[in-house]
């Protein structure tokens, strides 16, 4: 008896029991189900939610692998014993520091998803597959695993399940998790000691190493020790998966080509960021802000370089495009994206605690997305009303 028929018999056995959703989740991971159309169209297109989510994960994998190498590369560079980027030494740090983040994120998150599916008696939905991958990529490499576990529990339960699960949430779950970490454990989420492995434990000792990010340096009006090409290719400290702009651009192109990611959101977010950057450049050029201002450093960054520093690109490509929490109308997406970019740079420049503003901007716009959609849809409604009135006249 083959695997297929054994699993089919098990499925029949579990049918109707509490454990059915858990079993089905594992079963459908291996085999696409034998379900047929009941009413409505007799044929269906090839795409399902698993396929959609899988495409996003595929777009994230290069960022993860790069992040694993970069974790070690930055660690040894800060120690003063640099190693080659593509070396086993660098990758080993990735394996012992980054993979556990991935494992904890998926382990805790999926366990909660399974639990809720069993309690509520619905199938396990795929939303967390992407969230679970995003979370390790947007946290500092040295984040203690228990903090991650607590944050993931919070994010999945409060950010998603209380609203009814995948498709119903208002806030992006991955960003809810990051926001929780940021406000609950700020010393582990921002500052100049968290972005490089080993920096926190050595802080204050003779072996102290610096792990300043570029944003941090700018905010302190300090000089930047990284070249533009380092920033573009990603050989800089930062959250695990956000540093390589090149790979993020590849990911964006892949998502846009496969029609999974919304080009409207990605493009308008970038435009929004550039516009805000230009405004700040203008302010500096006009002489309203001088070198003595604490905002001078970030305001005087050439507007296009804002895309190379921090996580604005990562946020635009992978976070803002979450279809559930973004605006849902095509026009709304453009407005939504523009404001994300615009507000991101605004927060980046004005927030004195120099954290990255992207996640706050996206969360803020998540909240406003339904409002944007409302006004876009009202445009259609008004058109319909007007058509009726001209008829009556």
């Amino acid at each position, binding site marked *: 008896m083959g695997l297929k028929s054994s699993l089919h018999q098990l499925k029949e056995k579990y049918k109707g029991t509490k454990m059915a959703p858990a079993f089905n989740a594992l079963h459908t991971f291996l085999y696409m*189900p034998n379900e047929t159309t009941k009413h409505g169209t007799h*044929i269906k297109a090839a795409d399902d939610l698993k396929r959609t989510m899988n495409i996003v994960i595929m777009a994230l994998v290069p960022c993860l692998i790069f992040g694993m190498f970069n974790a070690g590369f930055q660690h040894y560079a800060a120690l003063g014993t640099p190693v080659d980027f593509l070396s086993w030494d660098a990758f080993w740090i990735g394996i012992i520091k980054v993979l556990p983040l991935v494992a904890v994120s998926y382990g805790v998150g999926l366990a909660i998803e399974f639990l809720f599916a069993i309690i509520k008696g619905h199938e396990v939905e795929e939303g967390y597959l992407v969230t679970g991958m995003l979370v390790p990529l947007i946290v500092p490499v040295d984040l203690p695993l228990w903090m991650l576990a607590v944050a993931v529990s919070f994010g999945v339960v409060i950010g998603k399940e209380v609203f009814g699960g995948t498709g119903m949430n208002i806030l992006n779950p991955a960003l809810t998790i990051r926001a929780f970490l940021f406000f609950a454990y700020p010393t582990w989420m921002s500052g100049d000691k968290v972005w490089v492995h080993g920096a926190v434990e050595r802080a204050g000792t003779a072996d102290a190493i610096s792990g300043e990010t570029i944003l941090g340096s700018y905010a302190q009006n300090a000089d930047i020790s990284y070249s533009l090409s380092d920033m573009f290719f990603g050989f800089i400290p930062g959250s695990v998966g956000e540093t390589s702009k090149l790979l993020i651009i590849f990911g964006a192109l892949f998502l846009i080509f496969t029609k999974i990611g919304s080009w409207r959101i990605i493009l308008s977010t970038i435009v929004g960021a550039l516009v805000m950057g230009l405004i700040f450049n203008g302010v500096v050029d006009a002489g309203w802000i001088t070198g003595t201002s604490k905002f001078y450093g970030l305001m005087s960054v050439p507007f296009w370089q804002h895309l190379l520093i921090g996580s604005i690109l990562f946020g635009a490509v992978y976070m803002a495009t979450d279809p559930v929490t973004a605006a849902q109308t095509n026009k709304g997406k453009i407005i939504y994206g523009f404001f994300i970019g615009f507000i991101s740079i605004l927060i980046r420049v004005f927030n004195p605690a120099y954290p990255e503003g992207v996640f706050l901007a996206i969360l803020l716009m998540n909240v406003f997305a339904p409002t944007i959609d409302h006004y876009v849809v009202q445009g259609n409604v008004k058109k319909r009303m007007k058509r009726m009135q001209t008829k009556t006249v």
Partner: protein
Amino acid sequence: MSTDISIKKGLDIKLKGAAKPTVEAAINSKYFAVKPSDFHGVIPKLILKEGQAVKAGQPIFFDKSNEDVKFVSPVSGKIIEIARGEKRKILSIKIEADSTQEYMDHGVLNVDTASQEEIKSKLLASGCWAFIKQRPYDIIAGVNSEPKSIFISAHATAPLAASCDVVLKGQEEVIQIALTALSKLTKGNVHVGVPNSEGSVFSGMKNIVTHRVKGPHPSGNVGTLINKIDPVNKGEVVWTLSPQDLVIIGKLLKTGQFDATRVIAFCGSSVSEPRYMTTKIGAELATILYDKGIEQSAHVRIIMGNVLTGKKSAPDGFIDFYNNSLTVIPEGDDYELFGWNKPVFNKISSTRALTFSWMFPNKEYDLNTNTNGEHRAFVVTGNYEEVFPLDIYPMQLLKSCMYKDLDEMETLGMYEVAPEDFALTEFICVSKQPHQEIIREGLDLMIKEIG
């Protein structure tokens, strides 16, 4: 007068098993049935009883809420069974056909001189009224409704749909009679959507306005035609008809006989010789299916209608009142190893998510009934809009139906749509939501609450 309509949003679903444009007569069926379920929202009140003889075109039942709307027998014979289900609901009225057919005489009418009332009462008494549907609600037209215009789409773009050129060939005379009659029932125009090609059956016809329609499916849906020409506003009514039914209406007016003969497309990848056939409304499918069609033991889905909007049927099912295609495709109740992540070449997709149908726009596919994934909440956005040409927000309208907000349904355009308009969005839906069912339930709710 003519306006061209060109739509870009949509998706042509090309399937294997298109009917060859040769029409042959199907084997005569011995058993026929009239199914009240064909007529949405009609509560049947029987006129005849089991065992009584019936002539072709003789009323069998009428609509309880509207006694003028009669439903007639497609053949002459004897009523052998009235099948009932739960709460004595009438499922079907089965008729054993006579070998020689007798027609009930409804009287000839000269449409050029006849008044609106005469035409109306003729259509009602002869059972032809049921061919006329109305929007809003996609139900049989209200007897007292005054349509602002009448729409007919003679452009078949649904997958494997019967071509109007084949189905209507040689029927120009009776079609013109029917169109003239219809034109007297509306203050507005009778709009006919025709494909891009010249020399269609409708070119040169009087009393109509033809529109050349271009673009992918659903450019041939009558709903698309309405939306682009004269959308339905609150309080307005338009009527719609299928072109093939004009033949029956025209014959009735010309000869006084209800001739249920209809050309259907027998198609689908499971059919060994897909072709067009002449048969009658209500004919038992078993007589058609096995003649150069499918194997007795074949594991297939028999669909009365096309693969997007048709009804699931069976060998003991019958040709239904509205559809003119009989499609048979393989059932898909099998598992597929890693079906959710491996590259897909043999299925249609509107994305490029390791699906490659975008590379082969002219390839014909052999699709089965597998859902290709499980039912989920709405997640993906923006993809419905790519295949939905109406000036309506599809997902927002669907959601308003799901949470039953009548005001929102009204303002978002519910009066303009029929379930079939949401067939393509349902086909591509990543979350495998039953769009057509959601819309149908929404429309039924509106009938109940608003009327």
